[in-house]
Each structure stands twice: as structure tokens, then as C-alpha cells.
């Protein structure tokens, strides 16, 4: 079973790196870029057979280590 986790900064938390990327895109001539938020993508290979168990375990991993929930949100996708 494979888990994919996206970790992003919460809305309202300033993302200076995203802002810098947005400016760079504008400099390159890409118009209509209204905003850029950047984050992390984490892929986890799991031995779990049950998707519900896998999701619960990855959720615990996110809370304990993968995301800092003071400033970050996360989303989890489980696939075979």
C-alpha cells in the first residue's frame, strides 16, 4: 500500500518562498499568476493491507513528525 502526503502551510501563514517563486514566474513572463504556495510531497511505502488502518497510521505519522501543525496542514491519499 502506498501513502502520498502533501504538507502545505496553513492559510494565513506567510509563505515567503511561494512569494519569491511567484515573482520569478512573473519575471519569466508568465502572466495571471495570482498566487503560489509551496510545500512538501512525501511518499510512504506501507506493508498494511487495510486502507483504513494505513490512513490512521499515516495520520499519526503526520501529527507526530511529518507536519508541524502549528503552521502546516496535511492531506493523505492511500492507494494500492
Amino acid at each position, binding site marked *: 500500500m502506498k501513502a502520498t502526503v502533501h504538507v502545505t502551510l496553513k492559510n494565513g501563514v506567510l509563505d*515567503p*518562498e511561494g512569494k519569491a517563486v511567484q515573482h520569478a514566474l512573473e519575471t519569466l513572463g508568465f502572466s495571471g499568476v495570482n498566487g503560489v504556495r509551496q510545500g512538501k510531497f512525501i511518499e510512504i511505502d506501507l506493508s498494511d493491507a487495510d486502507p483504513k488502518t494505513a490512513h490512521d497510521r499515516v495520520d499519526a505519522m503526520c501529527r507526530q513528525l511529518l507536519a*508541524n501543525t502549528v503552521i502546516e496542514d496535511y492531506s493523505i491519499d492511500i492507494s494500492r
Partner: protein
Amino acid sequence: MKAAVIVFPGSNCDRDVAVALRRAIGTPPVMVWHRDTALPDLDLIVVPGGFSYGDYLRAGAMAAHSPIMREVKARADSGVAVLGICNGFQVLTEAGMLPGVLMRNADLKFICRDVHLKVDNDNTPFTRGYRRGQILRMPIAHNEGNYFADGDTIDRLFDTGRVAFRYCTPQGAINGTGNPNGSQRSIAGILNDRGNVLGLMPHPERLAEPQHGGTDGRAMFEGLVAAFT
């Protein structure tokens, strides 16, 4: 006073702080490797600066879960003083021992220079060597020193006297000019509820000898010795 310095892979201020402690105490501190699980009888634990675990995932995130940190937390809960400097501050927030988080500097640059600090609370074992309102000069060297917490947490830190140091101009003004990294309300160092855990981004151990170009950091170590002797 009995002191220990925790050493993680990637710590690089562990020996600097050991020198400052040895100078203040008269005997060297115990150096404790991150894989150890026990600590001797102690008055002070220092979590030093550096780039523990190469700042993988987030600065301080991996070190916060290393075996020795369980024991550091237990000692802090029993009242032992814990001092986190720079990466050590990041480790203590990631370990949940201090509120908030140190984010990437607002200008996205690694900043390595002296800054000025104002002492907000001189009634702690860490700051009793200073006077409230005193202006200090200390070096910073970090990429993630931009202190962030939600508004209620920030208000509570100020209301309960848990802000130990704020960045200021050389004249002592607290404003955008004196704030090097975008930290909320210029916060440079904070205490836990109980007042026995301090985290700060500036490096007192790097300005503790005349050969360093200044000694403003020395009073922190001398104050700790006075508190625990």
C-alpha cells in the same frame, strides 16, 4: 552547578557552549550523545546550536524525537533548567517543550551577524545576570529564526512575562529595523510556563570572551551558576 550539553549529529556549537560553561562553572559539562537514554544528576541541560540531522524535514524536527530528548523532557518536567540556543530553540519547539515555531527568515536569507537584544524578563535563572531593559549585543547565525505562533499564544507569552528577549535597534527601539528575521513582535527568546526552559536564537556562547569581541553573553552562564550554586 552540574551541566550537560546534548550532542546531535550536526551540532556545531556544542563545544563553544562547553567552553563558556567550563569558564563559568570551573569544571567541564558532561557531553551527552543523542542516542543515550539516561542523564546524570543535573541542574542545567543545554541543547546547542548547529544543524542537527542536516535540518532534514524541518529544522529541529528529527532531533526532537531522538532517544535522549525523552529524558530531557522528563527532567524539564521535574524542574531542571533547559537552555536551547539557535538550533536548540528549534528542537525545543519541535519537541513541544516551548510554544510556536521558527520559520524561514522573512527575507529568505541565512543571516550571520551581531544583533541587539532587549532583556524583557530578568527574573529567571537564565537572565538574572542582566537587568530588565538592558540592551545586549549578540551574534545570530540562522536561516529559520522567524518566530511564529498564533495570536492568542503571543498575547499569553507577553501577559505572563514569558518573553525573555526581543530584537531591538542599537538604541533599544523595538521596530522593523531592529528585527532581523521577521519574528512576530520581535521575539528572540521565550520561556515555558514554569520558567525553567528558555529558547533563544542568538548565541550567548559566541560573545562570552574578550577575544570574541565582546562579553555580553557571559552573564547568562554566570547567572546560571549563581542560581544553582
